[in-house]
């Protein structure tokens, strides 16, 4: 399965990997940005939280009177200090479309390198998607590759703001 159909961002944070993993998961609501760009409840007050470890889920739970929660996705891997994988759905996704976010925590000179990959949109389950016998094509990947040049440029322009490196 291709893993190159992804958005990848990375940063270095000032703690050891175990602490970084712990803060990333246990305190997700503290750092997950607010506002309509980052939360899906159309401005409703909410808390983000991981419920359970592997097999659990990431939810955006609403704290207004109506309550309820939006399930962002299931937790597929939970390796403290090392790796976290969860599914990610937008509230406007077609049924059956699920993407995947993997976060890796690696020791770095001044803390932990955190690498986040969001991937999986060439796997949209559709009527024809699995019917043909062709192997995985690199066409889409190489097309994406052309775009990555631009993306990485904007990532570099972004680097150095806020997060320690």
């Amino acid at each position, binding site marked *: 399965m291709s893993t190159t159909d992804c*958005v990848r*961002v*990375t*940063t*270095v*944070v*000032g*703690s050891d990997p175990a*602490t*970084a993993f712990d*803060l*990333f998961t246990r*305190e997700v609501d*503290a*750092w*997950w*940005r607010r506002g309509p*760009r*980052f939360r899906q409840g*159309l401005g409703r007050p909410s808390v983000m939280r991981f419920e359970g470890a592997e097999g659990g889920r990431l939810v955006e739970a609403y704290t207004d009177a109506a309550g309820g929660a939006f399930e962002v996705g299931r937790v597929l891997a939970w390796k403290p200090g090392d790796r976290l994988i969860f599914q990610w759905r*937008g*509230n*406007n*996704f*077609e049924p059956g*479309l699920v993407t995947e976010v993997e976060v890796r925590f690696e020791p770095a000179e001044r*803390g932990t390198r*955190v690498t*986040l990959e*969001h991937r999986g*949109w*060439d*796997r*949209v*389950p*559709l009527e*024809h*998607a699995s019917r*043909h016998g*062709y*192997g*995985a*094509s690199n*066409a*889409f990947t*190489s*097309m*994406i590759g052309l*775009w990555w040049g*631009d*993306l990485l440029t*904007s*990532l570099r322009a*972004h680097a150095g*703001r*806020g*997060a*320690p490196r």
Partner: protein
Amino acid sequence: MTSRAGGAARQLDRTLAALADPTRRRVVELLRERPHRAGELAAAFDASAPAMSRHLRVLRTRGLVEEERVDDDARVRIYRLRREPFDALQLWLRELESFWSDQLESFGAHVAGRRAAAKPERPR
């Protein structure tokens, strides 16, 4: 979510769904070079004319390609890419990258804040 953003999201779904098939991705890759006739595409993929016709119909109904008839022969159809869905896809990827970049920046600031709170004698 405004209805316009909802419409953009539906177009993005249509684009991604059309690109979910490897043959259609290869057709798109060929059409990136130049417009092709339907027959050329079928030959390039060793596909039957009906099979290629089915793929082209998906690409056309989802707005990724447009077909043009050649004046002097109504049977010949030329396919070319439409730019808009690919611009929209690229924009979406940039937004997604920016989304996570901002999130990790916020996470880094949170970790730094925790560290500063744990060591008040040596604020960062």
